[in-house]
C-alpha cells in the first residue's frame, strides 16, 4: 500500500536535517568565543615569555611605530562582528607565511578558524551579515616584505593579532548587536 501522506513525509524528511544540529546556546557560544580568544592570546604570550631571547619574539614596545605594515590590521579597535571576521581572515592569510618555528602557527590558524565560526554563529544569532574581506588583495607585497624584513613582519603580525584578540574579548563583554 502506498503511503497517501508521502508528500508530507517527504517534506518532513526534507526539513529534518535543519533540526539535526544541536540548538546551540548562545551563552555557551559566547563563553567559548571568549575562552578561545584568551587561549590564542595565551599561546602568543606563552611563546613570548617562555622562549629564549633570540628565538622568541619579544614583547612589542608600545611606543614604537613601524611603517610600511599598514595592511596588517589591529591598530584600530574592532567594533563589529563583521570586522572581527574580516580581520581574522586577514590574519589567517598572513600566519602561514610567518617565519616562526616556535609559535604553533598551524594551531593558531586552526584556532582562528574556530573563532571565526563562533563569531559567525554569534552573528547569525544576531542577524548579522558578513562580507568577504576586501583587504585581501592588499596582501600582495607580503611575500616581498617577508623576504626583506621577516623579523619585523612576524613581530608586528603577532602583536597586532594579540591586540585584535584583546579587542574581541572586550567587545564580547558588551555584545549587543552586530
Amino acid at each position, binding site marked *: 500500500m502506498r503511503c497517501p501522506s508521502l508528500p508530507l513525509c517527504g517534506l518532513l524528511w526534507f526539513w529534518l536535517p535543519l533540526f539535526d*544540529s544541536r540548538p546551540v546556546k548562545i551563552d555557551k557560544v559566547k*563563553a567559548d568565543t571568549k*575562552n578561545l580568544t*584568551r587561549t590564542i592570546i*595565551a599561546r602568543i604570550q606563552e611563546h613570548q615569555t617562555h622562549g629564549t631571547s633570540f628565538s622568541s619574539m619579544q614583547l612589542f614596545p608600545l611606543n614604537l611605530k613601524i611603517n610600511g605594515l599598514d595592511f596588517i590590521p589591529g591598530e584600530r579597535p574592532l567594533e563589529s562582528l563583521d570586522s572581527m571576521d574580516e580581520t581574522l581572515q586577514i590574519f589567517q592569510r598572513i600566519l602561514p607565511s610567518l617565519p616562526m618555528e616556535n609559535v604553533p602557527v598551524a*594551531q593558531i590558524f*586552526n584556532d582562528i578558524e574556530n573563532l571565526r565560526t*563562533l563569531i559567525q554563529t554569534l552573528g547569525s544569532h544576531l542577524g548579522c551579515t558578513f562580507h568577504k574581506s576586501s583587504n585581501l588583495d592588499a596582501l600582495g607585497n607580503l611575500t616581498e616584505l617577508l623576504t626583506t624584513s621577516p623579523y619585523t613582519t612576524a613581530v608586528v603580525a603577532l602583536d597586532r593579532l594579540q591586540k585584535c584578540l584583546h579587542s574581541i574579548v572586550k567587545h564580547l563583554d558588551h555584545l549587543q548587536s552586530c
Partner: protein
Amino acid sequence: KYHLLLDLIFVTHFLHSFFVFPDFIRMAVAHCMVHQIPASSFMLPCMSPNETSVIPLTAGVVASGPGLHGEHGTAETNSLVLVAEESFLCCLWGETHANCSLYTAGMETKKFTSSEISSLAPQQTDLSWNIQCWTKGDLELFVCILKLSNKKSYLNGEFKINLLYVLSELSLEDMSTGSLKGNFMVTPCNCNGSDKYECHIPSLKLNYTYITWLNIINGVTLLQSPLMSVRPINIVKPEPPLNLRLEMTDKGQLKICWSNPVLTPYPLQYEVKFSGNATQNAWQVVEIVIETSLIIGNMLVGSSYLVQVRCKSLHGPGFWSDWSTPYNLNTEDVMYFPPKILTSVGSNVSFHCLYNDKNKMILSKKIVWWLNLAEEIPERQYTLVNDRVSRVTLFNLSATKPRGKFFYNALYCCNQNRECHHRYAELYVVDVNINITCETDGYLTKMTCRWSANTNTLLVGSSLQLKYYRNSIYCSDFPSIPPKSEAKECHLQRNHYYECTFQPIFLLSGYTLWIEIKHQLGTLESPPTCVIPADVVKPFPPSNVKAEITKNVGLLNVNWTNPAFPNSDLKFQIRYSVNREEILWEIFEVSNAPTRSVMIKVLDLCVVYIVQVRCSGLDGLGYWSDWSKPAYTIVQDIQAPLRGPEFWRVINEDPIRKQKNVTLVWKPLMKNYSLCSVCGYIVKHHTSENITWTEYVTNGTTYTYPWTEDADTITILAVNSVGASSMNFNLTLSQQMSTVNIVQSLSAYPVNSSCVILTWTLSPQMYVITSFVIEWKNLNEEEQMKWIQVAPNISKYYIYDHFILIEKYQFSLYPISPEGVGNPKTTDEFIKDRSEKRNDAGLYVILPIVISSFVLLLGTLLISQQRMKKLFWEDVPNPKNCSWAQGVNFQKPETFEHLFIKHPEAISFGPLLLEPEIVLEDINVAKALKSEDKQDLLAVDSMFTTIQDSEHDSACSSSHFSNSLFESSHDDKVSEGITRQSNIKYATIISNCKSSGLYEEQKNLSGSFNGCFLGEDSLVTDPFSRSWEVGNQAFLILPDQHPSQASKTISLSVVSSEGFSEPSDHDDTFSDGDSPERSLYYLGLTSIKKNENDIFLTENSRVMCHLHTNGLFKDMGFLQDTSSDLNPFIKNSLKYENSVKTFVPYMPQFQATTIKLQETTETKT
C-alpha cells in the same frame, strides 16, 4: 631495383564497412595524410612496382607545409602509398582519385596531383598484412599484432619489422612534420609464430597522441607504411568483467551481477551471453546493458545455461573485452541470497532461499529455516516472496560465538518434512562496539584518541581503520557517519591499544570518529562518537606548589600556580598526608574559580605533611590532570606550648645536713602540647609567704632544690620559640599536709606481666583531691621509681608496665590536694586471692549451668523412659485408681458384691463415679471389615457404650488407648450432655479369621489390643501366657454363625483402665511384683459353645469361661436372672438380651471371688 608500390588500404573487415562506419577513418588532407588507427583490425597491402602504374602519379610537388593535419569524416577512405628510395609518398586513395603527398628524407612534403583510379582489387597486391592494435586492459601497454595474410613468391620468407613512434602532447593539428624529424623511437616487433609479429609500446600515456609507422625489411627491400596516429585511450581493450554471481532482488527476482575490471578509464557497457552448457553455440541470447547486473527472472534457474559477460567503452571507440569466465546457473540445489552476510551486532538481516530438490522446486510455503542445525526459526520471521522464494529475517542479532573453526552461524533452508540440504548460508555477526576515547593535551594542541579492538571477536582477515569527519563547530546530537570522511593512521601500542594523534586540532570542532572494519565479505562501521577536543582536556598539573602550617592559626596552607592552559575556570583537588611510610591521603576539593591557594584544617600540626595538587575543568568535562610534584611542610613552632609538663617530686633527706632536698621530675612534653618543640622549662616557686622566684631549666627534665619553706607551691612552664605555656600544673609541698591520711586502703592485683590493677578506697575527708600520683618500683632491683598522675574521681587504675610477677613491687598512692601532698598509702605485695576469686566467680556461673543441665538430663531421661514405656508397654491402668476400686480391700473382700458396690470412701478419692462424665470409648478393629460388618460393630459398640454409661463404671484415666476406626463417632455420641470429668471406656473388636485357629486368633488379638495392657508385667506366666498377654481384659468373642459372613472375634473390654491402674498413693504396695497381695486377675468372656479355640484362660484362677453367642447381639441372653447384687454392669448389659446365652462377666477380682463367680455362673446356666 624494385620500386615497390605499397598500397595501404584501411579497411575494417571489408571495404564496404568504411562507408558504413565513416567515423573510424580519420584522414589528414592538406599537405599530408596521417591515418588514424581504428579500434579494429585493418589491412596493409603492398604492391609490386609494376603494379603502381595503375596509379598515374604526377610529380607536382608543392612547397613544404607547416604541419600534419588530420581530417575526419571524409568518405574517401582507401589510400596508396608509394615508397621511394629516399622518400615515401602518402596518398589519399579513393575510388576515383588518389591524392598523394611525398615526403623527402627531410620530412619535406611534395604533393602529387591526384588522378582517377579504378578500384583496387585485393588480388592485385603482392603482400598483405592484417594488423590489429589495441591498448591492454592494464592501460600500460600498446600492442600491435601483424599477421601475414598473403605473400607473393618472389618475396623472401623472413621479415624484420620495426615499429617507429613519436609521442606528442599536442593534438594532430598542432604537430608539424618537422617536429617528427629525428624524434622517432624504435621498438622491434617479435616474431610470434611463423607469420605473426607482435609489437609493444610500453609505459603508455593514455591521452597522448602517438604517431607511428612500420618499417618492414624483407632482405634488402624496405617497405614503409604511411604515418599512422593513435590515442591509446581510444583503442583500449578492457579486462573482462569479474566476479559473476547471482543475486536476488527484493521482489524475489534473480539477477546476474558482475564487477567491473579493476582499471576502467571510462564508463563501460556490457554484453551478456547465455549459452547451453553442452554446446557453446547451441543457443545464445545476447543483451547489451549499461548496469553491472541483469535481471534474468527465475525461469533460467536450474537450467543448464552458462552466462558470460564482456565489456567495452560506453562512449567512444574501443575494443570489446574478452568474455568473462562462464557462470553456471545450475550449480546448486539450494541457493541462498546472499550466500554470506557480514553484519554487526544488533542489526537485522534477511536471507532468501530457492530450494530445488531433485529437479523439483520446493514451494516457498513449504520451506522452513533452521539455524546451526539446532534451532528452528519461528515461522513468523518468514516471508513468502513468491511461490518459490522464501525469505527469513533475523532480528537484533547477537555476536557470533566461534565454534571451533567456524566463525559463522549456519542458516539452513529446509523442506517442511524436515529434510535439509547440506548447503547453508553463512551469517557473520561481529561486535563492532569499539569505544574510542580521546584526550587533549595540556597545551591544547594535540588530541590523542585510543581504542582497542578485541581480536577474539573480530573475523580473521579484518582490517581496522579509524575514520573521522570534522564538523566546523560542536557536535550534532546524534552523531552519524557522513558520506565524506578521512582516515587516520593509528599505531598499536604495547597495551594493545591503538593510538592516533590529531595535531594541530580545532579546539571547538566536533570530531565524529568511528572504526571501519574491512573484510572481504564487506565493511562494517562501529557506532560513531563525536568528540570536541576542548571537552576532553587533560590539563597540566599546577606548578610551584608550596605548603606550610600557618603560625598561630595552625592551618595547612597550600598555594600553587595554575597551568597556562586552559583559560577556562578550573577546579582543584589537594591531597595531603602525614609524610610517613604508609601514606594515607586525604582529599580536599576547591572549586572556587580564581583560587590559587587553600587553607586546610589538620589535626596534627607538628608533623611533616606531603601535599599534591591537581586540576580539572570546572564544568566537569575533561580529565583531572596528573598530581603535581609533592610539596612538604616544615615542622616549626606554631604556638606557645598548650600546657606545662606533668611533674612529681622526690624528697630526699640529707641526714648529715638535716635538710630535705626536693627533686622535681617531669615527663617531656609531647608534640601535641608543645606545638611543636620545647626549648626549656621554667620552675616557678610560690611560698606561703607569697615569695615567688623562678628557675630556668634548659637541659633535662629534673630539678633539685632544698626544701626550706613549710609550704611551697611549684609550677613548671614549658617554653618554646613562640612563648611559655599558659596552662600549667601546680604542686604544693606542705609538711603539715604530708601527715594527713586520706587513702584508707590500697590493693594491687596483677593481671599479667604487663598490667597491674591498683584499687583504693578513701577515708572520708575534708580535703579536695585534685589528683593522685601512683608510684611503683621493683624492690628487688635497683630500678628507678616510676610514677603516674591519675584523675581524682577514680578508685581503680590499670598500670601498664613490664612487671615480673615473682618479684616484689611497691605501690604508693599519693593524694594531691591544693593544700599539699597527703600521706601516701603503700602496698608491697600483690593480692593473689583475687585471681582465685575470679575463678570462683566463674564457678558460680558454671555450677548452676551444670546443675540445671543435670536436671534437664534427668527430666529428659524420665520423659524418654515414659515414652519408651508407652512405646513398648501398653499402659495398663492401676486398678486402684479405678473409682469403683477406691477403698476396696482387694486382699480380703467380704463379698463379691462388695467389690462392685461403690465404696462410700471412694468419694473422697476423686470425682464421683455416679456423676456425669465424659466417656470415651475405644474400639479396635483388627481387620478391615466389610461394610455389612460395620453395622454390627456399631451396634455392638453402642450397646456397650450404653451399658457402661448406665453402669457408671469407672474408666481408664489413662488416655493411651489405641484409636479405632469408630473412635470419633463414638466420642461424639457419648459426650452429648456430659460435661464433667472425662473417663475413657473402650471396646476392642477383633475380626475373627475364617480359619479361626487358636494361634491365629491370638495373633490377631495381640495385633489389635492396644488398650489397657499389663504388658510384660503381666502376672500371667504359664504356657498359655501368650494368649493372656494380649488378652488381659474381657473378651466378647462373637464367632460368626452365618456362613456368608466372615467369622469375627469381638473383644469387649469391660475392664476400665481406671480399674487396672494403680492409685499413685499406693505405689509402694505395687512396687514389688512378687507380692501375693497383688494377685489380680482378669476374667475372660468367651463363647462356650462348640468353639474350643475361643477359650481364654486365666492362669492363676484356672477358670475357664465360655461364651456362647448366637451370632447377633440381639439374640444374646446374658445372666438374665442374676441377682441384683451382682454387678450393675452385667445387669444392664442384659437388657439387650432376648435369648439367654452363656455369658461370663469378666471382672477384676480375687481368686476366691472368681471361683465364686464361676459357681454363680454355672448355677445360672
